[in-house]
């Protein structure tokens, strides 16, 4: 009897879990519906933003749009006719950067007929390639390589499945060349900040040097675990310090904290840092796990924190109080959002290519935020539901909307943003 009951419960559990799948799907759709309802108000918000924000690029393009007869396409999420499904190779959903990108893409999905399929948190090349395979099976047209461990192999795998691949491999030109050769027309290109991760570390060191910091603790994250991006950031930071010293500044890395929070070793290292005679802590990832300690130790006034991170709620108070003085910020709209016009052009048959007819690397600016004014300009813009690069801006770079859109206008547009261009 007992077992009968148990088997009933089991069956119920099975049904329940299936229902959970279904209802979640439904919930997802509901969400889509909700956001779509909000959309008009979002558009109203955007109008003033367009006036204020990115005037140079917007205006001439705006003049031309009507004359091309493309104005009848509206940004209500109905173009392109067939939904463009895009795979997103992610690394850590709990990270602020990925959350910021997700929020931006959610906004764009309301304006274009796109759907983004996010990966689970991937940690190695194999799971990356596996996910790309799943994207193909799910009917994706393109893949955004936000996380990339397999380098050009990812692009080549996408080409095997006839999907476009977006990604600059952290500015590794050799890999870009290999991707162009191996994936051909299916490689779209990607942004470069030079050697992105290395430069991020270097910018942080430079900014701290300019603020007169002399004794710095470096929090190097995954560098000790051999995670490539953190190894490069650490290297960049160390070289940045060396350059500052060569340039006459007094600056040294007095201590290095390795690994991630959550282990006893990390806690021990953190606490011992609080006893040291230092004036800055630089972290090659986020810096939030230092706030509580710094405040309790009463050093909030004498310490400066620097990190590679986001403009988000987390840092708002601390940037404005002066505790955090440097954030090296890869803006989600300019660094990652550029994937969308490239993909939309490619899937609608007007792929943007360089002179030799291939996918290309293009430079974008890295934003090093050092004043509260800069921080708040971005924060307030996002907080009001506006974006640095709006859906209209993106439409202007898509040939179906704007016949004059070219690779050069694309490059010029994304290359033009600096932290000071956000008003």
């Amino acid at each position: 009897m007992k077992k009968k009951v148990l088997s009933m419960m089991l069956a119920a559990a099975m049904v329940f879990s299936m229902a959970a799948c279904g209802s979640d799907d439904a919930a997802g759709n509901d969400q889509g519906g909700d956001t779509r309802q909000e959309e008009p108000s979002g558009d109203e918000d955007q109008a003033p933003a367009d006036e204020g924000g990115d005037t140079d690029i917007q205006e001439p393009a705006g003049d031309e749009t009507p004359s091309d007869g493309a104005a009848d396409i509206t940004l209500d999420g109905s173009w392109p006719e067939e939904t463009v499904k895009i795979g997103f190779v992610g690394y850590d959903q709990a990270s602020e950067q990925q959350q910021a990108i997700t929020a931006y893409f959610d906004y764009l999905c309301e304006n274009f007929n796109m759907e983004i399929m996010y990966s689970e948190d991937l940690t190695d090349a194999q799971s990356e390639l596996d996910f790309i395979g799943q994207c193909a099976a799910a009917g994706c047209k393109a893949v955004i390589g936000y996380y990339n461990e397999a380098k050009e192999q990812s692009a080549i795998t996408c080409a095997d499945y006839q999907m476009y691949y977006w990604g600059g491999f952290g500015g590794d030109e050799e890999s870009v060349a290999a991707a162009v050769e191996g994936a051909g027309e299916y490689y779209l290109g990607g942004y470069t900040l030079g050697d992105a991760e290395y430069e991020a570390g270097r910018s942080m060191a430079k900014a701290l040097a300019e603020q007169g910091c002399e004794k710095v603790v470096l929090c190097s994250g995954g560098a000790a675990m051999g995670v490539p991006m953190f190894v490069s950031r650490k290297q960049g930071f160390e070289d940045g310090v060396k350059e500052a010293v060569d340039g006459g500044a007094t600056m040294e890395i007095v201590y290095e904290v390795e690994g991630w929070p959550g282990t006893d070793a990390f806690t021990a290292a953190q606490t011992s840092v609080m006893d040291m005679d230092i004036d800055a802590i630089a972290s090659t990832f986020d810096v939030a796990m230092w706030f509580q300690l710094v405040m309790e130790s009463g050093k909030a006034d004498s310490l400066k924190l620097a990190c590679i991170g986001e403009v988000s709620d987390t840092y708002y108070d601390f940037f404005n109080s002066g505790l955090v003085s440097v954030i090296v910020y890869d803006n989600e709209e300019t660094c990652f959002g550029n994937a969308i016009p490239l993909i939309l052009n490619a899937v609608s048959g007007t792929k943007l290519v360089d002179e030799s007819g291939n996918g290309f690397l293009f430079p974008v600016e890295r934003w090093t935020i050092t004043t509260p004014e800069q921080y708040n300009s971005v924060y307030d813009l996002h907080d009001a539901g506006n974006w640095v690069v709006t859906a209209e801006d993106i439409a202007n770079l898509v040939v179906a909307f704007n016949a004059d859109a070219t690779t050069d206008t694309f490059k010029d547009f994304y290359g033009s943003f600096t932290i000071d261009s956000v008003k």
Partner: protein
Amino acid sequence: MSEKKSTKINLGGIGKLAPLIGLVLVILIFTALTGGKLLSVTNLQNMANQVMVTALVAIGAVFVYGVGNFDMSLGGAVLFSAVLGAMAAVRSGSIFVTLVVCILVSVAIALIKGIFSAYIEVPFFIFTIVLGSVISSIVLVIMGSETTVYLKDAVREIPTFNFTQMTIINVVFLAVYFLVCLFLFNYTPIGSKAKMMGGNKVSAKQSGINDKKMHVLTFVISAIGVALAAFILIIRTRTIGSQTAGSVGTDVLIALVVGGMPISGGPKSKISAGLVGALTVVVLNSGLTMVGLSTAWIQAIRGVVFIVVVLVSSFSYRGKLLPR
């Protein structure tokens, strides 16, 4: 009374077939939810590629788990032999040398585990958890600043395989290893001895089984699966980093359990558990991702399905005591 009895038999029957039923159910559900995309040619090839590493390791692990050794260091073993194999590939430029290094490294780890399990008699499960973390740290020390090994840096070019070739290699590797293991486990004394040891250590020993030798032997058989998995990883991804195979340990564990492998080993162990379980896990992952659920939902559902499948398969061996 009679009714009670028949229920029992039925449930036992379900228990034995649960893994297969689970697999079929998962396939049916997700074929429906994805509108048939799950079983498209592309995705079948995909899944054939994805199942490889988990299946190779899980099939071999049946021997180890069958004896009653709960091994949590399999992911670490794959990582270690993949890293050294990839380094050998870069330095030698030979695909043959790569395979040999993979095998040597994983057999060496197997011998260490064998010694600790058979002669030093440590609580094996905890030992392997610790061993796994130690291995991944040693990998970091070995790799130093290199962090990632790319096959394209090899002194001589290592051939690349396209998608179809890779699928063929995979299927051949898996089929051969599966059949060999099936033969060893079901038709040679190795299998029956292993099951006896898992069932009752003392009586197995008293019936004249050399348990120390058996421990080492089962680890070596499983090491071949590990080595093949590492080799496949190297030639497929051509990129081996310190995080490689990070999820293999838990994937294999989940696959074995879902495949119907009793957690304490013994007479109900079967080689097919590795394959069926790995297939179920891959279909489930693939299906959930393709339906477009968020990671949190994917993991929650995976957890529930995992518990449910285990629950059903446990009907065939439930006792009065709480299992440990």
